[in-house]
């Protein structure tokens, strides 16, 4: 998976007339940035903010993948996406064969239906939090008159919520988040907290059922 994404980015960077790294450099930079983003590390060997929009978008999508469960990475995690994809395929199968009973299997083991639902719920809620955070970043920047583009806002929201670090634009790999208004930075602090604990433990604290 990392290899595939790395080659896509390398190819896009190589084809971009705006960058002149040469073949070996291109592969190194492409792979390094992809691995850094997907594993939610956040290192950078080059200012990828200068890359073409297409390459930046692939990196952006990479933000949502995350490393493996049980690793030190954050984001949504590959195993969740695997379960989601397998469950989709199962649902398509049962749509055609309504009478079939077919559990979702991961490495040969059947995955509990409740777990499948939880994985769905977690992935969905992550996307929703990300979207709401983006809207907030844009709105808050507009309030104080700061110039934050929509892609920058999306990148910054994803990067803080998914615990990656650098994003695009002002918050690029060689930039910082200092240009965002204080209120946005407070919300981003909250996003990092919520993201690191994978949403649920924080959300539970906000329900009345927890305190009663």
């Amino acid at each position, binding site marked *: 998976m990392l290899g595939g994404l790395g080659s896509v980015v390398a190819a896009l960077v190589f084809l971009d007339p705006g960058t002149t790294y040469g073949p070996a450099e291109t592969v190194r930079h492409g792979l390094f940035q992809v691995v850094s983003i997907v594993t939610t590390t956040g290192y950078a060997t080059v200012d990828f903010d200068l890359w073409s929009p297409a390459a930046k978008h692939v990196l952006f999508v990479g933000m949502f993948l995350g490393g493996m469960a049980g690793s030190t990475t954050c984001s949504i995690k590959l195993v969740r996406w695997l379960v989601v994809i397998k469950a989709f395929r199962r649902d*398509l199968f049962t749509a*055609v064969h309504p009478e079939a009973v077919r559990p979702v299997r991961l490495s040969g083991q059947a995955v509990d239906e409740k777990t499948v639902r939880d994985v769905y719920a977690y992935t969905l809620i992550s996307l929703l939090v990300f979207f709401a955070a983006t809207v907030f970043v844009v709105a808050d920047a*507009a309030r104080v008159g700061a110039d934050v583009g929509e892609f920058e806002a999306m990148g910054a929201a994803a990067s803080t919520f998914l615990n990656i670090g650098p994003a695009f634009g002002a918050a690029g790999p060689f930039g910082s988040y200092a240009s965002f208004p204080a209120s946005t930075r407070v919300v981003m602090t909250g996003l990092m907290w919520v993201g690191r604990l994978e949403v649920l433990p924080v959300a539970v604290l906000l329900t009345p059922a927890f305190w009663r």
Partner: protein
Amino acid sequence: MTAVPSAAVRVDGRASLSLLGRVVKWLAAALVAPAAVAVYYAEWRSLGAFAATAVLALLAGLALERLDPDPDLGAREAFLMVGLTWLAAALVGALPYVLVGQGTVAAPVNALFESMSGFTTTGATVMGDISFSTHSRSIMLWRQLTQWLGGMGIVVLAVAILPELSVGGAQLMDAEAPGPGLEKLTPRIAETARALWKLYAAITVLEIALLYGLHLGNLAPNMTFYNAVAHGLTTMPTGGFSPEARSIEAFSAAVQWIIVPFMIAAGTNFALFWYVLKGQPRRVLRDAEFKAYLGLMGVLTAIVAGLLFTDPNLAAHPEVGPIAGDVESSLRQGVFQTVSIVTTTGYATMNFNDWGWTAKYLLLAAMLVGGSAGSTGSGIKIVRWLVILKSLRRELFTTVHPEAVRPVRLGGRALDERAIRGIYAFTLLYLAIFLVGTALVMLDASRVGLALSGFEAMSATAATLGNVGRGFGIVGPMDGYLPFPPTTKLFMVSLMWLGRLEILPVLVLLTSAFWRS
């Protein structure tokens, strides 16, 4: 040899194609309306195009019908038939644009885009010059009519009028109907289909009468009878095509106010109207989705109208005059655009590209909400979001109380866990297609050197997948999808198709399990 269970048999493509033939044959009949308009305005070239299309549709329909004189319908045949019907309708609908040869829609890819956008009630246009100086009145009417036919569903209409579809009709309607599950109003499915179409037609006629009434009452000078019919035909299907280049902005405030309740009605579950007519109006008030639908639009309208009222950049707008500081104007612009986007209609009373970022993002978010189940609206649908919210709350509760068994309830009824999982899967799949689609649109645009921002690409993808039609920037409410390369247009044609049929019926056609025996 013993009888094999249906699942073990290969999908019967002939049965699906034969039923498809019956629908295509009847599409020829739908061409009578624009043909009559062509005669009235003496547009002979257009008349020829409609006649040629009708003959071709009739011949193709009859040929397909002969494939299987007595088609048997199973689950797979139903999916195949519904999927193909919408593709075939788009192809037949594209023919008149090509044959008439007026303007940009004469190019085959553009014609297919316009036709798919019509039938799926998207309202995204690739017409370069939307005016009668380029296009005949009859072809414009055909453009409006495709939306009206697609609104309540071509297959639902077929079930209503074709007796051979009364068996297996429920499966067909389920594959086509918006929202999870189909509400049977009457014991016989053909009667349900007829009831839905009658209601739909009646409300359309009422709107046409009111719009024309405004014209007669001197409140809408340019709402001629033609325009009244044209807009009646595209409000109720939540379509959004308008023969006016500047959409509803071209009309008076009275017209704009009148259209709002009809858009709201179009985004409402049609079963609710049926209950009102049957003397059970309390079922409407008890309906959880309806309450959420009205509540959501109310809150969004209040926020958007507030933002418009206080936006210093809207103090004097070149096209629509002052909005900021004007209560009526900011309320009207706020409610119209909000309702138009939530119901996936896509009309506009102003170029909302001129709004502030917050208001624009709210509209983009609204695109992902969608209308009610059982309405003519598209998108993810309110009821799905309701179930997701309730299920998430349940999840939080059971985390604190792991021993608690607590079903998710909607309108007092406990929901099946399988249905909840299905709703999660659909919503997630929808968002995934939206994100991947956005990336593909961006990539294709950068390939041909078309300047497209991420926000524009997101809105264009959400607007085609959600059958809304209008986005931001270059695909704004007063612009169209013409600048996109043909590859993107074809991709969007498939997005509209996927969105209208709610993904699953199209996606199963791509699985190997569907075609294997």
